[in-house]
């Protein structure tokens, strides 16, 4: 089970839930399940530019097909820019 | 635009007389940036650097003659001049980089008429005269009478500066120039202050002149500061009076480089320091 953490912005869509466990093999599956649980969350993530995920601390900018290891820690965040 | 490089003052006078859009230049360190910023090109750019009289630096009969088109590097490289007029030479060595100092000139620094021109306060405290050529021949004008406002001079159409005349300083006399810039090089002065001080045998100040840059539309002489100095030793009290007189004489503006309050305060600080530096050299006999 991956642990998915929500930022305070995102908690508006999760009814205040800060952290849940989800069984998902890929980010795509994880997103599908999140959308089922919290309708509108994907649009919210797009709108707030939270289109990257951090899986066990590694920030992945375009993650849809990314595998999610068991017990991974997942955060939904902004893709980084750099100079 | 046409480019011409006449060989004589008379040719320059004739060119200027025939074309009000013609312009003389030497280093072009102001002209080129102004053209790039959109100022119209002159019809004719008259290069003064091929006229030996305008690029020479010489001492004759107790008077220094500095060509208006001599690059300031030729001042800093002249040991005898630097011994006599260390403040002026130091000021010339502050104008931009080595690259700039191989082009920039006292004539250009004066006639571009920036209130922040580094060499002008030193010319003024040394009571420099400018030889001006024009349709009516040559005349000699005090340098302080030439700037009339930012970018403006009292020179009439067809006139240009040929050379500067500065009497050698008397014994136990020296000058100094200090400026405040944010970096160590390459900036325009936020404030500049020049001082010329003469000491008598007792170490009392016998004559003085203080001039400020970048605190008014033109260079400012501060007679009140000079008066405070003359007649006694250069004490902390006197220096405080000098600083206050300079802050009072300053009439600056707020702009991208500094504020009114800053310029007033620092004008006093730099004037005080310039007096001390000049007096220190004068106390060692000055340049003689």
């Amino acid at each position, binding site marked *: 089970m991956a642990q998915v953490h929500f930022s305070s912005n995102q908690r508006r869509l999760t009814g205040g839930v800060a952290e849940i466990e989800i069984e998902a093999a890929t980010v795509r599956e994880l997103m599908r399940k999140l959308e089922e649980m919290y309708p509108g969350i994907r649009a919210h993530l797009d709108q707030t530019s939270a289109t990257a995920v951090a899986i066990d601390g590694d920030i992945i900018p375009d993650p849809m097909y990314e595998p999610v290891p068991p017990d991974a820690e997942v955060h939904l965040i902004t893709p980084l820019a750099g100079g | *635009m*046409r*480019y011409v*490089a006449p060989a004589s003052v008379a040719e320059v006078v004739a060119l200027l007389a025939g074309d009000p859009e013609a312009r003389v230049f030497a*280093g*072009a*360190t102001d002209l*080129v*940036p102004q*053209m*790039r910023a959109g100022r119209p*090109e002159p019809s004719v*750019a008259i*290069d003064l*650097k091929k006229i030996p009289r305008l690029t020479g630096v010489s001492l004759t009969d107790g008077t220094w003659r500095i060509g208006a088109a001599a*690059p300031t*590097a030729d001042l800093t490289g002249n040991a005898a001049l630097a011994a006599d007029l260390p403040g002026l030479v130091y000021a010339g060595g502050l104008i*931009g*980089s*080595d*690259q*700039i100092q*191989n*082009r920039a000139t006292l004539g250009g620094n004066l006639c571009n008429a920036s209130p922040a021109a580094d060499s002008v306060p030193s010319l003024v405290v040394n009571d420099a005269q400018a030889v001006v050529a024009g349709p009516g021949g040559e005349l000699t004008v005090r340098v302080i009478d030439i700037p009339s406002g930012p970018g403006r001079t009292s020179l009439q159409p067809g006139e240009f500066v040929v050379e500067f005349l500065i009497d050698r300083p008397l014994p136990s006399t020296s000058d100094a120039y200090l400026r405040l810039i944010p970096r*160590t*090089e*390459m900036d325009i002065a936020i404030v500049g202050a020049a001082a010329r001080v003469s000491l008598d045998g007792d170490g009392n100040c016998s004559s003085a002149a203080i001039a400020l840059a970048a605190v008014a539309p033109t260079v400012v002489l501060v007679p009140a500061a000079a008066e405070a100095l003359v007649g006694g030793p250069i004490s902390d009290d006197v220096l405080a009076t000098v600083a206050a007189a300079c802050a009072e004489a300053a009439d600056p503006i707020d702009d991208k480089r500094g504020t009114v309050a800053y310029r007033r305060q620092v004008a006093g600080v730099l004037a005080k320091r310039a007096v001390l530096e000049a007096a220190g050299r004068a106390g060692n006999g000055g340049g003689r």
Partner: protein
Amino acid sequence: MSRTHVSCNINGDDVEFLCDAGESLLDALRDEMRLMGAKEGCGTGDCGACSILMDGRLQCSCLIFAPEADGAAIVTVEGIADGDHLHPLQQCFLEGAALQCGVCTPGFLVAAKALLDRNPDPTETEVRYALAGNLCRCTGYDKIIRSVLAAADRMKEEVAG
């Protein structure tokens, strides 16, 4: 308007070119002579990337009207090596990693050469002030200053040796 004819010596070669009177020597070197070593970083004499020597004097070629070069001897970065033998400054810049992007490097080399020609044994402070007219945004100047000092040492050794 007819163009101005200029004859001069560049890096040891007598050359002639035509230019507009208001054109900078920098543009003439690059456009007419195809000498691309001098760069335009500012066009106003503030960055030194276009530094050249004209009659032995270090100058910003962006501030020189091209016709001023008539009769002059000009040295650009392309002219400071002795054939295939690099100038000690060039060698020390390479060994000392004194360049990152390299666009300011030609100007620094010419300015540093002007310094060492006039002062073969400069202090760190003298080097810093002599190169204050050359902007570098990559290096923080540290390795440039060290490399100029190293070149000065090497040139003294060559003279002594």
